[in-house]
């Protein structure tokens, strides 16, 4: 992959409201991210299992902090803490 790729990767499913919730938060904080779309069948999501240990989406990988995380509520909380007002980054 080229060097100018965003450091945040979002694994998502088209039309998944939990994924959109994370997208809204990323956009709110003006964060660069790349989207990797997976298929609806859980059995077709080995890539997500490999990175996060689970087959659920959304999942994000943030190379800024070295963190990988799933579950939209956890991700949103993480983004708020890390990139929101008074966040660490």
């Amino acid at each position, binding site marked *: 992959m*080229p060097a100018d790729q965003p450091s945040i990767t979002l694994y998502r499913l088209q039309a998944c409201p939990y994924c959109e919730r994370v997208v809204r938060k990323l956009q709110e904080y003006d964060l660069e991210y790349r*989207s*990797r*779309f997976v*298929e609806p069948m859980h059995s*077709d999501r080995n*890539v997500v299992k490999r990175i996060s240990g689970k087959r659920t989406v959304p999942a994000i990988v943030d190379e800024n902090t070295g963190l990988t995380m799933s579950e939209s509520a956890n991700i949103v909380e993480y983004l708020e803490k890390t990139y929101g007002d008074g966040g660490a980054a």
Partner: protein
Amino acid sequence: MVDFEVVDLGETEHVDEGDTAPDFTRPLVNAEYWEDASLSDLTDEGPVLLVFYTMDGAFPATYVWNEIRDRGWGDRLTVVGVSISTPYEHETLIEERGMDYRLFSDPSNAVAREYGIDHDLDGMTGISEPRPSVFLLDEDRTVEYAWVATEWPEFPDYDEVEDAIEANV
């Protein structure tokens, strides 16, 4: 002798040898997921064989990808396909054909128009897809070899493509 109708597609002003292949960004599908990628992302890494083919599910798609897989071109350079099929259909094709190759998804067919190889399908109103075409590109996206179908259906001269790969890669 069987009456066998091959349609003449006529001449077209297409991207040709010596030209710089137009860059584009589209969802690029691998066996596990898809994400936006540019042709130049791939050529930056080395030579690329860019293969435009009929929509996934049409028999020429099966023929072309079986042949390319059996010839093992992917061991020598990056082979990448483009069709108007959606990423979901590409996932199915990749799985069914056991393909190591990634496929760009371009339902709008705008990439084919940019390359001068778009083709309106008779009897499928409103659907346009690329003429079957093969472009061998170097790291600067210079076209080293080009083949564009002038008849329908028509298949690449695989030996000729292989010679071009031998000569340039």
